[in-house]
């Protein structure tokens, strides 16, 4: 069984953390993963940096630009992760934009992920239909879960469709925004969270975008299975470096 599915079966609210591979320094990837696992995080999204991350806000943009400057590439990332399963067991997801994967070759990319022990992918600009028609078979072949997104604007009908072709969890974007823009949840979010909870989807949901501290983590996981922190963690790494992960994780989970 895929590590993501295993994790989702645990009877707890899950904390998933996103970081940009190759940032702040090119060689920080492995130690960040290890640090996150060690400090009790449940799932990790490894950001494959892209030159033009159009679903991302300034924080992740800046980290991506720096990572690319540091020399991060798809090849380099795969090399860094080659032996990652020797040291960690935590579910690992690669989050990246579609073009670098396309250039690598989608089949080759998936194959490599399987070899390394990657459990899933999040590709914000790979639309559901294209995924379904052109790539699902490949993902399935290599045992990769493709995590699909929904937003407050997604219709119930489309949510059910997305649910039907998902096989891990649904990435529930908390509000209409790029990453790192929200600073707390209001009534709108609560209604949205409730609406989705009531839909009784087959896949659990994990909330992303706008989770930055214990309060928002708690709010989000009131209805959902877990929550993903991205920009807040990248900011933390920017300010405190990679040796202070415990402080960050503890501040979320208290």
């Amino acid at each position: 069984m895929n590590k993501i599915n295993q994790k989702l079966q645990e009877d707890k609210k899950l904390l998933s953390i996103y970081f940009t591979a190759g940032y702040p320094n090119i060689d920080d990837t492995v130690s960040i993963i290890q640090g996150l696992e060690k400090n009790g995080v449940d799932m990790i999204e490894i950001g494959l940096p892209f030159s033009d991350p159009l679903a991302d806000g300034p924080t992740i943009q800046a980290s991506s630009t720096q990572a690319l400057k540091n020399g991060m590439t798809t090849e380099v990332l795969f090399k860094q992760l080659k032996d990652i399963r020797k040291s960690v067991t935590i579910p690992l997801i690669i989050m990246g934009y579609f073009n670098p994967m396309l250039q690598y070759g989608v089949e080759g990319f998936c194959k490599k992920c399987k070899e390394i022990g990657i459990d899933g992918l999040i590709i914000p600009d790979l639309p559901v239909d294209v995924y379904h028609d052109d790539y699902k078979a490949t993902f399935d072949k290599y045992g990769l879960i493709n995590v699909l997104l929904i937003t407050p604007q997604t219709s119930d009908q489309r949510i059910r469709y997305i649910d039907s072709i998902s096989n891990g969890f649904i990435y529930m974007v908390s509000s209409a925004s790029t990453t790192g823009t929200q600073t707390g949840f209001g009534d709108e979010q609560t209604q949205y969270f409730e609406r989705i909870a009531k839909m009784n989807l087959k896949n659990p949901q994990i909330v992303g975008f706008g989770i930055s501290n214990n309060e928002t983590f708690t709010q989000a996981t009131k209805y959902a299975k877990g929550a993903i922190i991205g920009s807040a963690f990248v900011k933390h790494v920017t300010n405190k470096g990679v040796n202070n992960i415990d402080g960050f994780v503890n501040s979320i989970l208290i």
Partner: protein
Amino acid sequence: MSEGRKGENKRIPAYAGMTENMKTYNVNEKGYYGEFGGAFIPEMLYPNVEELRQNYLKVMAEPDFQKEFNQLLKDYVGRPSPLYFAKRLSEKYNTKIYLKREDLNHTGAHKINNTIGQILMAKRLGKHRIIAETGAGQHGVATATVCALMGLECIVYMGEIDIARQAPNVGRMKMLGATVVPATSGSKTLKDATNEAIRDWINNPANTYYIIGSVVGPHPYPDMVARFQSVVSEEIQWQLKEHEGTTKPDYVVACVGGGSNAAGVYYHYLDDENVKLIAVEAAGLGVDSGESAATSVLGREGIIHGSKTLLMQTNDGQITEPYSISAGLDYPGVGPMHAHLYKTGRAEFISITDDDAMTAGLELCKLEGIIPAIETSHALAIFEKKKFNPTDIVVVSLSGRGDKDLETYINHFKL
């Protein structure tokens, strides 16, 4: 009703014909030109893009829409734009050169054909906040203009470098009441402005309409923009008939940034292979200099701004920062229609350096009394590169006027 224009009701190609009578070089039902196109967008944009996709052809076919669109093109934009026989230029190059005078449109470029169409679309979709990206500033001005005309809020994203080199257009946008937001990431040019506009749209999904300025972006934008711009080739047909007794030129030439200008002049000739299409890209300091925007030569298939097309990128799939002296051509991608025209060989692609473009621009000033936009100057430069027959009819899209580029020209030539 005016008798002053022909073919008024043929302006926007009827959507009914699209699937029944499929054109090889046109978009298919799924939003692809051959293998290019599609809508590679984050889920956050799905409702907006899908709403547009489901409505655009229906709305464009409404008599009411057509009437308003055509009336504005005529009375506000000043269409038809003339098809001008450039006598002295023709003499110099010993062929028959006609200039399609999009520079005479209100706001000074072809861009307004599209923004008029899209603002009417936005209104019919009930949107009241308008965003746009701009490179040369022409699309930004054209968008600010139609927003003022309709009393709608307007936010324009523009690369920091472009803000500096196209200052007159920034001034115009301010006069028109638009907010100009600098894009400070990447190469600080059109690509980055587009990223910012998309991010804004993601953040404002309900009330905001994104007026894309070229035949780029996710389907249905490339097709919709091409249809709005197709008024240009529709006019060329009857205008050329008046001048030369034929609706068909031998060549149609256009510079290509995203490709809306070219799409407009090609449109009605796309499937008539007797009419040769020439697309002119910006070679910057030279195709092999590392400072170029010649997408077709340097690009590979990939995804940019929601569309599968040709783009300049590293082996790794990172989008390359392009360079051209011309802000409107300084873009690492090209619309999917053009990628298809390139791949199939339907259009000939020529790249022109900064220097050659500037020289051609000045030549047009001196020979014909027309100051072209630097974008346009690239198209004009082909006459030094390619020989035409004396009897060839070559229609060049004079996509914009050069008022915005005066400082660049004057510094370049130390006038």
